[in-house]
């Protein structure tokens, strides 16, 4: 396997590799996204115009940002079901506290960010210190936060933040040549995505993935698990806050504005090939999953499918997408096991992969006594047998 890649770095091989990546679970979401975008352009030719397309991106921005936040939690091996309630709470906070006084925008924005970080901190500390499953913690937070928000407003959404604040969600830089208007949402999304990519390449970001893959080895390698995990919850709550800021401008104040966001985010992340249970996934693919999901809705809309069938189609698509990636994982497990984890092997494989593969070949057969040492030493971690085992536990269960 490694021999093929090292001998032929020609253009054809690269194209084949690109094709393989697109067909692989990791890249499938991009293929799906391209197909859906083409379908959109065919069904509604005006959509292909840049100004229309940028409007689409603007609409997706909050979902994509929430998905990026959810990505960090999921890749760290947990769930965050409280995101939808955080979005609602932030929208209501913005609506009630800013009011028509534009001078309050910045202090309230700071308060919202602090509140978001606080919610994430509470979630994370309960998960890590009290050892309550994150599903339960964030479910409780979802109920409590939504109930508290509605209690505060008396069940009806009140307030409408100043136009200056709403401008973040619905305004933009005007007079750009091709696209006419560059919405602030798109700028925010680009910044968040860039920050997320940068962050996931940092040692801390890699630690999150290591933690999601195997908390025991992460602890042995000196990770402060509680802090890393807590920070993922803070990231997700903060991203929900940012999405709330965008939504308050785009959609206004409404008590059900964040409803269902947690499941949409999880769906998008899973569509992006991120494995529930942690340890595998790419943040860009998670964002692409959000785009694919929204593109799917748009296509259904253009195709004249009644909106009531939308859920059914969404359900079928996510099952098929995950089934596809799961079965592909199964059939190509041996290859993926080595390729997936250390980033260095796939592009510059000749140096990195060749010394590993004979080791790996040897290690499949003998007793697990050798495996015991392996997780402790960092680099040759992807021993086929162990990584195969946890692929199976994660894909299957």
């Amino acid at each position: 396997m490694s021999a093929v890649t090292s001998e032929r770095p020609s253009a054809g091989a690269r194209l084949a590799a690109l094709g393989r990546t697109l067909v692989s679970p990791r890249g499938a979401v991009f293929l799906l996204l391209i197909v859906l975008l083409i379908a959109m352009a065919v069904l509604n030719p005006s959509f292909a115009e840049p100004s229309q397309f940028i409007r689409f991106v603007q609409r997706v921005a909050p979902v994509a940002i929430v998905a990026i936040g959810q990505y960090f939690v999921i890749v760290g091996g947990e769930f965050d079901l409280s995101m939808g309630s955080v979005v609602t709470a932030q929208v209501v906070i913005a609506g009630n506290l800013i009011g028509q006084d534009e001078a309050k925008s910045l202090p309230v924005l700071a308060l919202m960010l602090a509140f978001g970080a606080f919610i994430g901190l509470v979630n994370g500390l309960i998960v890590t210190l009290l050892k309550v499953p994150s599903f339960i913690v964030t479910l409780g937070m979802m109920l409590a936060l939504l109930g508290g928000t509605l209690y505060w407003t008396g069940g009806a959404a009140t307030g409408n933040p100043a136009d200056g604040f709403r401008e973040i969600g619905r305004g933009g830089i005007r007079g750009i040549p091709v696209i006419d208007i560059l919405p602030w949402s798109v700028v925010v999304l680009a910044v968040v995505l860039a920050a997320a990519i940068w962050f996931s390449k940092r040692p801390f970001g890699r630690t999150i993935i290591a933690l999601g893959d195997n908390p025991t080895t992460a602890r042995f390698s000196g990770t402060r698990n509680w802090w890393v995990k807590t920070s993922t919850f803070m990231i997700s709550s903060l991203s929900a806050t940012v999405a709330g800021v965008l939504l308050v401008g785009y959609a206004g104040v409404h008590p059900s504005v964040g409803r269902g966001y947690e499941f949409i985010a999880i769906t998008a992340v899973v569509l992006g090939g991120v494995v529930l249970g942690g340890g595998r996934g790419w943040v860009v693919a998670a964002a692409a999953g959000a785009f694919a999901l929204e593109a799917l809705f748009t296509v259904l809309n253009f195709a004249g499918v009644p909106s009531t069938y939308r859920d059914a189609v969404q359900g079928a698509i996510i099952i098929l997408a995950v089934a596809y990636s799961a079965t592909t994982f199964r059939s190509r497990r041996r290859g993926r096991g080595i390729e997936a984890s250390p980033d260095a092997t796939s592009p510059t494989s000749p140096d990195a992969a060749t010394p590993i593969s004979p080791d790996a070949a040897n290690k499949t057969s003998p007793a697990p006594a050798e495996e015991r040492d392996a997780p402790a030493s960092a680099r040759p971690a992807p021993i086929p047998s162990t990584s195969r085992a946890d692929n199976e536990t994660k894909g299957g269960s």
Partner: protein
Amino acid sequence: MSTTTPTRAPRRTGSRRRLDSSLIVGIALVAVIVIGAVLVGAEGRNFFSAGNIRDILTGMSVLGFVAIGQTLVILCASLDLSVPYVVSLSSLIAAELMAGDPANIPFAVLVVLVVAVLIGLANGLIVTKLKVNGFIATLGTGLIIKGYLDSNYKGTSGEVPWEFQLIGATGVGPVPVSTLIMLAVALLAAFFLARTRTGNHMFAVGGNEQVARLSGIRTARPLIVAHVLCSVTAALAGLLLASRLGVGSPVVGTQGGYDLLSIAAVVLGGTLLMGGRGSIWGTIGGVAIFAVVDNVMSVMQVNPFLKDVVRGVVIVAAVAVYTSRSVDRRRPRFSAGAEPPAQAEPVAAADAPKGGAA
């Protein structure tokens, strides 16, 4: 040899823990009842009056049905998020087929159960054969059912004959018939888990699928059975709701929030979300805790939005109390697995990522 020891270990600890966790849930339930009785007493009402007890038991029955099935699925380390839609669908099918005629009752019930079995079968096959995570698979099937419901039903429909409505309306003393049926189903499920081979295999598969397979269990079958039974109990809940409402409703399941609440009740009852350990009676205790808390809040006329806050806090606090005790209990299992140094290690290694996955 090396493969059989680890498989038995979770089962042995499972039975020991089952006792413990049920005990903790029981203590929590008693504590909730005492606090509730004091609070209700402060309002000048009697918590233990026949009417109030009937209210609590009635409140238990629907969530109880759903949670029994959910327990089986969670024991197998899967989840079922499609239950609220199955509940709605079965209430609609039942009400439409009965159409007010008592002669149609057996046929309608049969059709509802067959549909539920098919849905459960689809869930189980998607999870086991297509290797889709249970969370996603059942979210997907739930959405598909929701799409069907939204497209074909605009509101309540059908009519349930009086004879069938009696199930939801009558009681033996302060105990409603529906709760008795629910407890009977719980008894059957507990018997199924404790005494049948498939039931035992559920613990094994949920505890560690790898080890279960290596020790010769067909891992797919218990999972499929669990999903089928879960859909069936959700359908029973739907039948009960139809009998209470007198009509079928497309939103009755989602309004009850049975997906997340049943999962919360199961976890509250001491069943591990990552599978392999838990009990039906713990779940019933968890459902009872919910019912008591809800009842106390209704009697005290708490603001409906604050109810959600209290519910959320109770869920997290109760599970926190439970897990903080069980953290110590988990240690022996891991060290026991690790003590024979060479052989048992892969089990611990394969188990570790799941530990974080919860």
